């Protein structure tokens, strides 16, 4: 529900901005700042107040949702697709292919990823595409490892042997016979990866190494607002709440997807043997 709302807000941000009459990157010339030049508190025309340049925080928070969702969903999807492909291949092929791929995943998993991410961004220059690339690169290995493990145990099943003896080629076995069994754990992982990707993007932007201003993201809004936390609580509060609600909603979704798809877990305790 909450996620649907966030997605709708992100989709219709320009329409809402039109209706309200404020632009995300334009100051309200008539009354965006107090006479002293400080941000303006919440009023009817600026429900979340304004920022240090007199821009409407409400509109900016909504526009930021677009960046966060795009970063979170795209990076997680890329990571999951890559992870599934590599994991399937490693698990099914076995032998030297498996050794090389599994070790590669081990190496990527032992990278100090935030440090590496920051260093990479500093070299290539901050942009949304780079942020997404960095997140995807450091996330796919975890998916790959799970998929590999599952594939190894699945490929010994009798039905796979049956498929092989009927002359199914390896691709058919990997994608038609094995993959459907992996959809549940992969789906759970995808929903849990999205919030962590969103947090990663926000963190990079907060450090000034993600999406750069004036494009609004929750991370860079928070970074800007910290200069004003003594006079403008709303400027810190609303981006923070938006970010927290989003990650919380995705984590709750991930948990319920897992409960729904995993017959073990909670239920195990109910039927006490």
């Amino acid at each position: 529900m909450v996620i649907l709302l966030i997605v709708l807000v992100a989709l219709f941000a320009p329409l809402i901005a039109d209706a309200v009459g404020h632009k995300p990157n334009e100051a309200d010339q008539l009354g965006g700042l107090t006479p002293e030049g400080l941000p303006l508190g919440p009023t009817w025309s600026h429900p979340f107040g304004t920022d240090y340049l007199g821009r409407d925080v409400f509109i900016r928070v909504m526009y930021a949702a677009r960046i966060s969702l795009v970063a979170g969903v795209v990076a997680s999807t890329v990571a999951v697709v890559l992870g599934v492909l590599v994991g399937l291949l490693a698990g099914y092929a076995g032998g030297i292919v498996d050794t090389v791929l599994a070790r590669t995943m081990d190496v990527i998993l032992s990278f100090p990823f935030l440090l590496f991410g920051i260093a990479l961004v500093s070299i290539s220059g901050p942009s949304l595409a780079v942020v997404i690339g960095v997140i995807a690169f450091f996330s796919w290995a975890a998916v790959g490892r799970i998929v590999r493990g599952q594939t190894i145990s699945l490929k010994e099943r009798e039905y796979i042997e049956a498929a092989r003896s009927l002359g199914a080629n390896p691709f058919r076995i990997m994608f038609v016979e094995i993959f459907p069994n992996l959809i549940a754990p992969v789906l759970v992982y995808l929903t849990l990866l999205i919030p962590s990707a969103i947090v990663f993007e926000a963190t990079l932007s907060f450090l000034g190494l993600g999406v750069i201003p004036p494009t609004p993201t929750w991370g860079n809004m928070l970074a800007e607002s910290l200069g004003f936390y003594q006079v403008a609580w709303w400027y810190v509060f609303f981006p923070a709440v938006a970010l927290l609600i989003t990650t919380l909603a995705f984590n709750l979704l991930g948990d319920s997807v897992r409960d729904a798809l995993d017959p073990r877990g909670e239920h195990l305790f109910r039927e006490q043997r």
Partner: protein
Amino acid sequence: MTLFLIRRIALGAVVLWVMTLAVFVMFFVAPHNVANLIAGRQATPETVALVKHRLGLDRPVIDQYRDYMWRLAHGNLGYSFYNSTSVRSLIWQRVPVTLSLAIGAAALWLLMGISAGVLAATRPRSFADRAVTFIALFFYSMPSFLLGVIVFYLLFYRLHLAGIGWFPGNGYVAFTQSPWRWAQHLILPWFTLALVTAATYARLTRGSMLDVLNEDYIRTARAKGLRERRIVYRHGLRSALTPIVTQFGIDFGTLLGGVIIVENIFGLPGLGQQAVQSVLQQDLPVVIGTIVLAASFIVVANIVVDVAYGFLDPRVRIH
């Protein structure tokens, strides 16, 4: 066990080598030009060439790589571009800060996370269980920079406004100088780091304990008439700890990533602050030094975890 250990250390060495290679490729071979960045935006081609020459960037890649590995192998990380001090002394200065932060926070999060997890798992579906589950999910969803900002605002700024100066907002005092002020400076960063991480442990402990408490040997222990406390802690928790140890190895190793944010928010002069600062200044030798050190942390932590398995779970020792 010995063979296993040798293989693990060899793998660790390979990981470390790949990491140094990645750093080398990133900074010395990649298409962008480090010299341009250092010489500045309006530099003439001559200046760029001079910078390149002074950094040895105009030599063949293979030669550069050989020198780079040679220096690394001797523990020589070069000199900072900015203040000409050696990277090693620059980093060593900051290690105690980050280590104090990491160890304190780790102790706190293990304590909080595991006890909350055990509390929840021993009373499934109770109010305590639901509360722990919800609070854990809340902090699990909380970005550490956000929690840092909140803690800073409430416990430093608001308290200072109210005239209560219990927690300093930034800086660091060495333990040897004054243990009390040392703890005072670290307590907010400790809690920020610990709360975010403890959430994972509470969730993990709860799940793992629930599984273990359903095992046959727990039923046997109950049937023998052992006290519930003993069953939960000696029999249950011990084997439930295995996934937690794995997680701890990963987390403690990657803590250097986590401290980046906390150190910057609370103004602690540790490795994380150094890392961001040198990345922003394009101070390559320092960036490389920090990354190599961080990577070694992770590799060593992973090896320690694998060894710890052997002690916790006798089944692992056989393989």
